[in-house]
């Protein structure tokens, strides 16, 4: 569990984040899926939307904005954002590689995958490249045990990784090709 939300002022969003009208319509659709008075249930889904829209992470401003939309106290959003490991409460790179490190993936070589990516990107797990392009993280079991080693980037799973596939993947993302099927 990430345990704190201390963010230096300089790294906050400088302006209040606001959903585009299209995204706001989607947010409303999700809120309307729940019975009246239960809109708080939509908080996790909306935090996912917010991460996608506002740079891949949740600033205090973003979380306050989500609280405002749902008409709940900001603390109710902070406590959720800091409990669930998918949410980043600190700025991160444009693409986040989350490599599964749990048992079944380890059995088929995920330790090597992690080390290879570390060397390739010249960063350690938890760090972001200088150009802010890639962040490398490890994740606990992502439910791809039969298809390891694997990593998740955004909504995509990249499975059966080899060194060559990792190379291709990094080149593709660097070139902005996020639709790559590997």
């Amino acid at each position, binding site marked *: 569990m990430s345990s704190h939300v201390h963010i230096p002022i300089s790294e906050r969003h400088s302006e209040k984040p606001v959903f585009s009208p299209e995204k706001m319509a989607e947010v409303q659709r999700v809120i309307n899926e729940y019975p009246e008075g239960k809109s708080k249930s939509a908080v996790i889904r909306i935090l996912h939307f917010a991460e996608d829209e506002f740079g891949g992470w949740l600033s205090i401003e973003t979380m306050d904005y989500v609280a405002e939309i749902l008409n709940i106290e900001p603390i109710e959003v902070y406590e959720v954002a800091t409990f669930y490991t998918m949410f980043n409460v600190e700025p991160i790179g444009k693409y986040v590689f989350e490599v599964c490190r749990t*048992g079944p993936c380890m*059995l088929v070589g995920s330790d090597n995958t992690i080390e290879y990516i570390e060397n390739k990107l010249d960063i350690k797990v938890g760090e972001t490249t200088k150009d802010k392009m890639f962040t490398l993280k490890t994740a606990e079991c992502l439910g791809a045990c*039969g*298809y390891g080693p694997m990593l998740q980037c955004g909504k995509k799973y990249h499975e059966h990784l080899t060194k060559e596939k990792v190379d291709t993947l990094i080149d593709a993302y660097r070139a902005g090709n996020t639709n790559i099927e590997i």
Partner: protein
Amino acid sequence: MGRRLLLEHDAVPGIETFDVYRKHGGYRSVEKALKTMSPQEVVEQVQLAGLRGRGGAGFPTGMKWSFLAKPEGVPRYLLCNADESEPGTFKDRYLMEKIPHLLIEGMITSSYALGCNLSFIYIRGEYMWILEILEKAIAEAYAKGFLGKNILGSGFDLDLRVAPGGGAYICGEETALIESLEGKRGNPRIKPPFPAVKGLWGCPTVVNNVESLAAVVPIVNDGGEEYAKIGVGKSTGTKLISACGNLARPGVYEIEMGMTVEEFIYGDDWCRGIANGKKLKAFVPGGSSVPILPHYLVTKTAAGDDRIMSYEGLSEGGFATGSMLGSGGFIVFDEDQCIVRNTWNFARFYAHESCGQCSPCREGTAWMEKVLHRLENGQGNMRDIDLLAEINKKIEGNTICPLGDAAAWPVAAAIRHFRDEFEWHVNQPIESQKRNYGLSKEISFATNI
């Protein structure tokens, strides 16, 4: 190959669409239940089928349904637990990705049986692309009149929603799932009251695994008695097994319960043995939280009988010489794998995933991780091995939810069956560091393709 009730059509092109699914017999159970059966009759068929929860605990689904309180004027909820996070388990993902309508059909029929008019699929946040597949399929079902108001003219209304989690193993525990669905941290609740009485938003709630709900479809189509003819003893029907680790052919398989473990691991239709011609060292048959067994207890029980793939077969011998079917997360280790390293890896998982609510679990899982880490790295001593057993006893049974037990059991079993390997790490500190390092270096990428 045995009979396939759930994955029969998984290879049919376009089976993820309503029309193709329908052409292959899809949504018959909804028609049959809504037009010819009372809700109670559906529940009775599920009880007759002897269906047991496929998420891991193996509790009879029909009995769970019968506990649901039905006070007048209070809504009831059916929640599908698609928070599949148990290491080694990826069967629900396969089912939802390939045949999303099977789950939706199972949920409609089950919601009818339970009298629920609003049901949810709670899916782990990492499966966001599957959430999109499900929402697309749900929209199709609405358009075809299988969801919404007055389904098939029966007067039964049902709305079905999908909600994502945010990356927390604990939300697979049913009360934590409910908390999460209410938009809160996933801290399990103290029971009683059980969800059947007070669940989502304080209303009576049933939480079932994806595979359990999908199994309701063949049960209603063919009748509970037919379903119960498959399998062995109290392990009726088919079970999805997600096979992984050092197998020649890992993947998701649907088995008839009762086949032998030997056939499953080595059979040509199944996993085709250990990858790269290596030897079997150990296996964990039901997800990371069930006890590990050494090779001599994998295909045979301690009594020398063939070990059977069923709830009873895999737990034959109790915790002393048996394990559990659990979620069907079937993890196989080859001769090169280090049990200490794997035990540490799983302990790290549980330490990471403890919600932090109960001290024995929060502190205990972190201690176990620390102790195992130093053993693994050749910095432990003999007393550490006993210390692990002591910590285990302090966690087990002393927590609100079963995560504590799930963390404790695999460590206890690893020491029970592989104590010599732990001692070797203490006696050979330098060697054990080298060995592990060398070991992970030797494994090439993707040995199992």
